[in-house]
């Protein structure tokens, strides 16, 4: 029994990681209809930004919660700037080319970050400083670390935060308008360039927060860490209904639980294929995802 409970906790922790990244994917897709392949790599950059900041503050030797918050905010700020730069110099110039051009550009940016990362940081995995010491809570034979708990809590906060921004604020209204029809939004006097840049800044900052949180719990970072995790997070976003914020959360947790369940059975060798198999099934039977539908308001 405690094994089942433990696996549930494991699945939730893993799912929260996917969900955290999926939220950023889904937001950018909601506004621009662009699969931002580089999102997983911004997540990686966030982890590396956190790595350098935390080492500069020597947080590995002297952990502190305040330090961790400073590092996370710093990484978020750095990645927000990177996100805006990527949008300005790679995506904006091709925004009016055919859709294919945007997609190829996105793949290009993703490769650039992954391999540029290998050139700059080296291919060897690094150890992420333990800004918050791992503590294992044990309840009735079920273990969870404070770091995993943190990821789950942050994912939930981010989800509600995004829902609030998109549905309750002025800029959220502008985002929804841009998503609905970019040209008309422009005619209505909305500075769509600004809205899109804001979306990228927000999405990238979230990716960075995710990167730092995950690196804290699984302290091995390398330039390719965003590749698979990013792809699976994207699948999670599609599963939940791309463009739908609570959907990304649900999709992430479902993929996490599914992978955990597979790992715990004799089919552990097929675990990496599971997310993609689910994707194909979803597209066959419910192309809009679990929460998505043609009429639901996106972004």
């Amino acid at each position: 029994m405690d094994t089942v409970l433990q696996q549930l906790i494991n699945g939730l922790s893993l799912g929260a990681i996917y969900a955290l990244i999926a939220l950023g994917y889904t937001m950018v897709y909601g506004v621009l209809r662009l699969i931002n392949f580089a999102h997983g790599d911004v997540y990686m950059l966030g982890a590396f930004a956190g790595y350098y900041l935390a080492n500069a503050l020597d947080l590995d030797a002297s952990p502190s919660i305040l330090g961790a918050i400073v590092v996370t905010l710093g990484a978020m700020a750095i990645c927000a700037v990177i996100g805006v730069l990527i949008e300005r110099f790679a995506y904006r110039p091709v925004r009016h080319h055919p859709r294919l051009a945007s997609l190829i550009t996105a793949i290009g940016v993703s490769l650039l970050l992954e391999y540029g990362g290998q050139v700059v940081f080296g291919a060897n995995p690094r150890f992420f400083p333990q800004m918050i010491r791992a503590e294992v809570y044990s309840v009735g034979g079920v273990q969870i670390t404070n770091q995993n708990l943190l990821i789950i809590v942050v994912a939930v906060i981010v989800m509600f935060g995004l829902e609030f921004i998109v549905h309750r604020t002025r800029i959220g209204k502008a985002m929804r308008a841009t998503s609905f029809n970019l040209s008309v939004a422009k005619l209505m006097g909305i500075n769509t360039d600004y809205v899109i840049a804001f979306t990228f800044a927000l999405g990238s900052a979230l990716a960075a927060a995710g990167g730092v949180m995950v690196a804290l719990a699984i302290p091995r970072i390398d330039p390719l860490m965003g590749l698979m995790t990013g792809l699976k997070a994207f699948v999670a976003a599609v599963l939940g209904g791309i463009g739908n914020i609570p959907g990304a959360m649900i999709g992430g947790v479902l993929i996490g639980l599914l992978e955990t369940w597979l790992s715990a059975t004799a089919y552990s060798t097929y675990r990496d294929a599971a997310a993609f198999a689910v994707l194909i099934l979803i597209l066959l039977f419910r192309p809009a995802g679990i929460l998505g539908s043609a009429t639901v308001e996106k972004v």
Partner: protein
Amino acid sequence: MRVTTKILATAATVGVLLGLNYLFEYGFGDFRINAYYARILNLIGINVILAVSLNLINGLAGQFSIGHAGFMAVGGYSATFVTVYYGRAIAGLLGSSLDDATGAAVVMTISLLTGAAAAALAGLAVGIPSLRLRGDYLAIVTLGFSEIIRVIILNIPAVGGATGFTAAIPITNFFWIFAVAILTIVIVRNIAASTFGRVLATIRGDEIAAEAMGISTTRYKVLAFVISAALAGVAGGLSGQLFANPLNPQNLNFVRSIEIIVMIVIGGIGSISGAVFGATALTILPEALRRLDQQFPGLRMVTYALLLILTMIFRPQGLFGRREVSWAWLRRRGQDRPAAAIK
């Protein structure tokens, strides 16, 4: 007359290829083909098949697949499987062996056809669910598909699992690679010039308009997709049975698919000549840049990525655009006469 010309052209092509193949294997007098160059040339041929076939779906039909390596894997592993496990038996039925030219040729034909069929089936299975949907879903599904294939291959010990299919028998040679490369070019070229090709061009231009004109867009897209997959499968079969080039799940991943995409994007999406050029250039370049890559590890892929982005921003049509390098085009350039006058 036209039929005679075609037959003659085919015979001449086969003759030339066989002659070259002899040169490759046995040399001519004191001369030998340098094995390193020969290997690169063979890899160029395989990449030409991959690029031109991907061009059918990405260029002509305007659908974006990023899982070409997956189809290459399906076809390649099936083809190699046939040769490894049934090759000797098949050759034996003919009273021949795999070391014999006839026996090897028959086994190669059967193995490549099996590879093509397997990849085509995979193309059908992937194409039907995803081609009904918007373009970018195809991208992500093809990517997912190639990941699934990779994981499945890892779980089949009969094909080597993680070690790669090192049991492969090296029966691929220069002749087969370039015969298939030329065949691929002819097939894709003829499709582009046919009614089917016009339909694909219409779908690329405006899918809704095509639908309104009564075209069953999904059917045509799936058909193009299946042909493209089958050709990639043949390329896999050739690649996996090339000397010292065993198929390996690690090689048939996302990055391999991207490399093929870079080839057609650089050459010009939709142009067969462009795909041939891109495949050739991007096979030679990394070998020429070996030293550079050693000093700055990873720089090659960084260059690829920058090439992709910059091409998309400044020259989205690629080097060739949709133009083809043909006799008519060359003559037109030389004599400054309208094309119609030549025909």
